[in-house]
């Protein structure tokens, strides 16, 4: 039984009892690491199955084996009792396994419509592509799922959230038996999330097996029928969602209890202004943004996708040009407006886009960590390598960065550990103001709380922390004051005590 979301009439009745997909005894080893050890997973047709676990638990590896990205070392995969031999993504797609990966997997130069049909172009006579059908079908598909985007738009020109929706839509354009979604909501707005959940429920109603991978407990409780938890490459539990509470889920995932995700240890912030931004505008997005951040304070910026948080972050550290306005750090103006001056004055950015703006993937951990503070280890232009490594080792120990050695290429570390290295980069430099943009993107629960603790500590040490986030709990859990943006403008600033989810969302909508 297979179902094409576009042509639901062709689907047959849900045939429960026979698993849609059955993975048994899956093993996968990477050099020096056992990624998966004898893992089982069973997906039932018409059911929504959540897969949870910390980073490094093996979720991604399991999905990638399902998708044919990796080969498995041992174990079997069966679809409705028939054993599958999946060697490449093509094999997996042919079996109707559609995976929506967390990282956007679209060709940004193509139109939205073309991306929808990337896996198989409808062709007309003579095997030429039927562009009219592509446009019409994708428009129809968007219509069905209530998704408002121009199929002729260039994909790269869309905001990330819409790209994510396009990816989800793509999984529905072809016949599917199993749909896998890896952290699909990480950049969606609340409206889009509820849209997505409606879509997922309809998929299930059509008899498709859905595997929903997420860190977000509330989402899992809302949508899932069953939850499987992995830890350290091993299967921990598979239970109906009704048997779980927040605590039991977290305990399964981490193997211990977290007292609180947001351990606040710092005192109340001082009143010394560390960062002052007045009348800031940029050519594309920002309009007359003014605010101040005090030393020892976490100032949280909330906004929906496209509100201009990332643009603001890049502008105030001097990375992107501004058209008007002033920025001053500790009373000294950021002039000329560039990152060199910014870092000299003591303002730096922890980027949301680690891969293209943060990491030097090919270079070792220690060189990534010391990048911003090399001057401190320089003696007449020469690097004191011993001193440098000692300093980096210090941070590796303090932040419990998991790496085989300082010489490991940073691309081989997990997201959470990469983020810790990047935070170390700024701590080694010594800043007055740190701007953190979506600091926990792509980072799991366990590592998240460590990152939160680090941010708390930074503020405690007297830094002004400007935090851009789209995660409401993060905002309410960490920030002293909350600023809300909408379409490039600052629409509200409130203290945490005054803030409610409703007030924040109202300001975000404008």
């Amino acid at each position, binding site marked *: 039984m297979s179902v094409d979301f576009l042509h639901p009439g062709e689907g047959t009745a849900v045939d429960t009892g026979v698993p849609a997909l059955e993975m048994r005894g899956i093993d996968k080893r990477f050099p020096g690491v056992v990624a998966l050890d004898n893992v089982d997973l069973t997906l039932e047709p018409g059911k929504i199955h959540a897969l949870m676990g910390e980073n490094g638990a093996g979720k991604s590896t399991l999905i990638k084996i399902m998708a044919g990205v990796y080969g498995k070392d041992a174990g079997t995969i069966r679809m409705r009792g028939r054993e599958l031999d999946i060697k490449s993504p093509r094999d997996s797609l042919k079996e109707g396994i559609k995976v929506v990966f967390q990282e956007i997997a679209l060709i940004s130069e193509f139109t939205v419509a073309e991306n929808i049909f990337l896996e198989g172009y409808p062709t007309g006579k003579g095997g030429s592509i039927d562009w009219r059908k592509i446009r019409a079908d994708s428009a129809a598909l968007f219509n069905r799922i209530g998704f408002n985007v121009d199929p002729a738009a260039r994909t790269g020109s869309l905001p990330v959230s819409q790209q994510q929706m396009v990816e989800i839509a793509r999984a529905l354009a072809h016949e599917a038996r199993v749909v896998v979604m890896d952290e699909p909501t990480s950049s969606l707005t609340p409206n889009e999330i509820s849209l997505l959940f409606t879509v997922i429920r309809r998929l299930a109603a059509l008899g498709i097996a859905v595997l929903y991978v997420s860190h977000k407990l509330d989402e899992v409780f809302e949508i899932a029928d069953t939850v499987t938890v992995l830890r350290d490459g091993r299967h921990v539990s598979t239970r109906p969602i009704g048997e779980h509470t927040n605590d039991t889920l977290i305990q399964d995932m981490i193997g211990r209890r977290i007292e609180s995700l947001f351990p606040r240890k710092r005192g109340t912030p001082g009143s010394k202004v560390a960062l002052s931004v007045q009348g800031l505008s940029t050519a594309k997005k920002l309009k007359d943004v003014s605010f101040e951040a005090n030393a020892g304070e976490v100032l949280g910026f909330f906004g929906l996708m496209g509100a201009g948080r990332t643009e603001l972050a890049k502008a105030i550290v001097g990375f992107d040009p501004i058209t008007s306005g002033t920025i001053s750090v500790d009373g000294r103006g950021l002039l000329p407006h560039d990152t060199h001056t910014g870092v000299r004055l003591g303002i730096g950015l922890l980027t949301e886009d680690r891969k293209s703006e943060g990491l*030097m993937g090919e270079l070792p951990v220690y060189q990534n960590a010391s990048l911003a503070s090399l001057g401190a280890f320089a003696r007449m232009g020469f690097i004191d390598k011993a001193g440098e490594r000692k300093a980096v080792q210090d941070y590796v120990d303090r932040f419990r960065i998991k790496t085989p050695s300082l010489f490991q290429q940073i691309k081989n570390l997990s997201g959470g550990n990469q983020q810790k290295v990047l935070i170390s980069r700024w701590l080694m430099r010594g800043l007055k103001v740190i701007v953190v943009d979506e600091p926990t993107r792509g980072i799991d629960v366990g590592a998240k709380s460590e990152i939160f603790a680090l941010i708390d500590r930074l503020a405690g040490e007297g830094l002004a922390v400007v935090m851009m986030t789209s995660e409401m709990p993060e905002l309410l859990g960490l920030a002293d004051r909350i600023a809300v943006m909408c379409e490039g403008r600052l629409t509200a600033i409130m203290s945490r005590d005054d803030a409610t989810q409703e007030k924040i969302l109202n300001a975000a909508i404008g």
Partner: protein
Amino acid sequence: MEMSELTQSSAPRRFLGGQLLGSSQLVLGIILAVLCIAISIAAPQFYSEANIIAILRQCALVLIVASGMTMLIITAEVDLSVGASLAFVGCIGMAVLNSTHSLALGMLAALAFAGGVGLFNGLVVTRLKVNSLIATIGTMMMLQGGVYLFTREAVQNHHRLISFTDLGAGYIGAIPLPVVIAVVIFAIAAVTLRFTTLGRYLYAVGANERAVRLSGVRSERLKLFAFVVTGLCVGVAGMILSSLMNAGQPTAGRGFELTVIAAVILGGTSLLGGRGSLFGTLLGVLVMKVIDNGIIILGWNQDLQMVVPGVVIILATYLDIIRNRANVG
């Protein structure tokens, strides 16, 4: 070497040689050794003092420019105009020497011109954001044309300065002066890349320019620096070449850029930036020139001088990949 630190990361350091030699250097060192042994078995003259000096002198020119080029390629840019610039520099240097009879002024003019070409390339790449491969093809054409606008004939040596002749043909002890100059430039470049903050930044810019810029480092200046250094190296090499030929030859340097870039790539420096070492470049230059020399010494058809480096470049890169795979697997 930076390379070794990277490639050794996954495995413990097993032997001293491993600390000195990164992945591709090891392969290359073996290739070099095999070549030397094989050639000298077939032709004992290979190990004559005169031949070794001849090889070293040939290496010197390539190594000087390759030192700058390695830095440039590490920052993920490339300069194809070095061959054309080499010819132009020689003509300008010689013309200034003829009119001033001062080696210092001649050198200065050559360096100023070549450095200026580097600066121009650098500005076009960093300011106008033109892909360096294309930008320097453009500069190459402009220089090839420009040199004939400057002089239609080879610029002859009218000044007869001994010091100028020594630049190419002189010796310090038993070692030819160009070799000494090359070693000094190589050493400075190697130390810079290996031990200084500047060198570290050059790697960093090649690995991720945006990250470097976010860290408060002026990445464009680093690239500009690498372009200018490459230019200056061409200035030195151009003057040595014109001394060796006793004239500024507008036709010189054809295909020189490919020899230099091939040697750098052969040495394991990645065209994508962020990876490579000068020690590898040294080996790359030696391998290329030993092959060239061996073919002449053995009396083989000189056309093989084109075929063999082609095979070696592909082979060395392939062996490097195999080795890396073996290490990972």
